[in-house]
């Protein structure tokens, strides 16, 4: 008899990995290039960057290739990679009014300073499967590009318009109010959830950071509950904009100077919700106003940004009742890496734990049987 202590576990893992690779290759098709994913699956890339909390489009594309399109797994890869990177700088606050906008709309007003620009969106397409795409080839690309670029030839050279914030219109009129909770919780140092764990009541910084890297589906579900009636938030879209913003850091050596380190694409949403008359003390200084909810995430991910803004506002409620208003309920359950990890962990052996339970149940039954 062989006295091998470790037998089989390691080998099993290796074989499982080989099988995964086999499943990816067995179709016989040409291996996907990372560039193809970057170019043609950009929505998945954005989602993975946002949930992985790392703006690195090429790495996100690589992760998607490695995981065969599993966005939860791919975000996980990115998040893990993040942990081996040193933190070099904090950027200066980004001014999104300087955004190079590719899309900008408002639902609150029919028209707005700067105008409404639909940009690249599927919102108004008919959701019909396009079977022509089955035959798409390089000639299609060439033909479309040549025709389209000729069409817009004149406009390309015009400077892009600037877009002031819609929500500033309300702010100037004194109609915007910072929720009491956030006013009271303001601190001098901004929390960083990648360096501390969540504490409750959570600061606005913690809320927004958690949401910004949250999993799109969970956030959408919770925001949806709020819109449907488990709570009171009707998020009128003050503004949604998608575009590129510069990342600027303070010069490490020369005081007063800054360096622009690059550009990132973000989706920014500001919703406006009316504040119902407070049923707390009849403070003479309180008049009806609006409060805003803010959403920001990497890339173009509009559902997530709207959900984020809705949840931001919901969690600032003075009398939280519904699940989406309970910040512990929301913030603990929207992180995709944590949720998927723990959901999956039930696949790990639990036989020692289970044996302990069996032992108890049998013990009680035995005693009851003796009575």
């Amino acid at each position: 008899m062989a006295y091998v202590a470790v037998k089989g576990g390691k080998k099993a893992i290796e074989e499982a990995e080989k099988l995964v690779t086999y499943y990816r290759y067995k179709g016989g098709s040409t291996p996907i290039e990372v560039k193809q994913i970057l170019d043609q699956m950009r929505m998945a890339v954005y989602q993975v960057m946002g949930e992985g909390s790392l703006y690195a489009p090429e790495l996100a594309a690589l992760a998607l290739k490695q995981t065969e399109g599993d966005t939860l797994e791919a975000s996980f890869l990115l998040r893990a990679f993040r942990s081996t990177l040193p933190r070099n700088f904090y950027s200066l606050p980004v001014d999104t009014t300087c955004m190079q906008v590719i899309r900008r709309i408002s639902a609150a007003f029919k028209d707005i300073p700067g105008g409404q620009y639909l940009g690249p969106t599927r919102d108004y397409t008919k959701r019909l499967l396009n079977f022509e795409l089955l035959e798409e080839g390089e000639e299609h690309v060439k033909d479309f590009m040549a025709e389209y670029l000729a069409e817009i030839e004149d406009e390309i050279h015009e400077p892009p318009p600037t877009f002031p914030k819609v929500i500033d219109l309300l702010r100037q009129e004194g109609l915007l109010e910072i929720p009491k909770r956030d006013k009271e919780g303001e601190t001098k140092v901004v929390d960083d959830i990648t360096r501390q764990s969540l504490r409750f009541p959570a600061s606005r910084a913690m809320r927004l950071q958690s949401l910004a890297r949250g999993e799109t589906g969970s956030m959408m579900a919770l925001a949806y509950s709020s819109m449907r009636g488990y709570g009171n938030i009707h998020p009128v879209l003050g503004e949604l904009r998608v575009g590129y913003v510069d990342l600027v850091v303070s010069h490490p050596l020369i005081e007063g100077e800054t360096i622009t380190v690059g550009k990132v694409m973000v989706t920014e949403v500001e919703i406006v919700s009316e504040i119902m008359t407070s049923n707390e003390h009849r403070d003479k200084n309180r008049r009806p106003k609006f409060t805003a909810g803010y959403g920001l995430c990497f890339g173009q991910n509009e559902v997530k940004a709207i959900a984020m803004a809705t949840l931001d506002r919901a969690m600032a409620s003075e009398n939280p009742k519904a699940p989406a208003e309970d910040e512990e309920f929301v913030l603990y359950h929207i992180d995709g890496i944590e949720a998927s990890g723990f959901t999956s962990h039930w696949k790990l052996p639990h036989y020692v734990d289970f044996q302990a339970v069996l032992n108890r149940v049998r013990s009680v039954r035995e005693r009851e049987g003796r009575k």
Partner: protein
Amino acid sequence: MSRDLQETEKQPLLKVRNLSKIYGSSCKSCLELTGPDMESNICPRCGSVVACGNISFNVYPGEIIGIVGESGSGKSTLIKSLYFDETPTSGEVYLQCFENGETNLLSISSQKKRWVRNHLMGIVYQNPYLGLKMDFSCGGNIAEKLLAADWYHVGKIRKRAKELLSKVEIPLERMDDLPRTFSGGMQQRVQISKALANNPPLLLLDEVTTGLDVSVQAQILDLIRQIQREFGITMIVVSHDFAVIRMLTDRTLVMKNGRVVESGLTDQVMEDPQHPYTQLLINSMI
């Protein structure tokens, strides 16, 4: 009676000094501009609500003190402040049996407050959902109070629980049932047994019979009197009903708009009320 005994008899068990509770931003004029003379709790300058303003009184060992007033008089806020359910805006409270009556209870740490609540006080609320944990059995509720007072013996806990439940006439077969399934009167009796579990020197009763059927009310009041006779516990009874006050208490404080407008021996206050508001209350008794 020896000199020393006389001295301790004269020492109040509970001393309350200048207790105030103000909801809102509060300003310098809040106390000045509110009260029974203004017929208002709301400060005209800042809109804050003065629930209690500058309340002071003593309670002597073995006494039952009544606090009477209508809704908004501040009586419930006062008693909740004593039990640390509310945090007063200002004031001092001293219990003779805690650090010799020398420490202001409102200034101690929450850990110490918890200790005081668990070992030296009991409370019965108008709403049993406040005083009982509806997810714990009847016995479990009493056990909670005993465990907080460091009883860690299941047998002894259950024995004591049975004693208490018999005293309040709850059938022992229902000891392990959830109070959710009991009638209002029964829930109140469970609350009383829970409040008595740790033999507290001070018992607070906040509108305990309000909302119950008249016959049930009578039962509960009778029970409270019995308990007082048997154990000599010091009590503060809050009610809007002078009939309850008359039945139970030795001395009474009358509150209006967050202030005490009259105080004295219950019989005297009822027979010969001085303040016009007291007169109004007494005259409107059916």
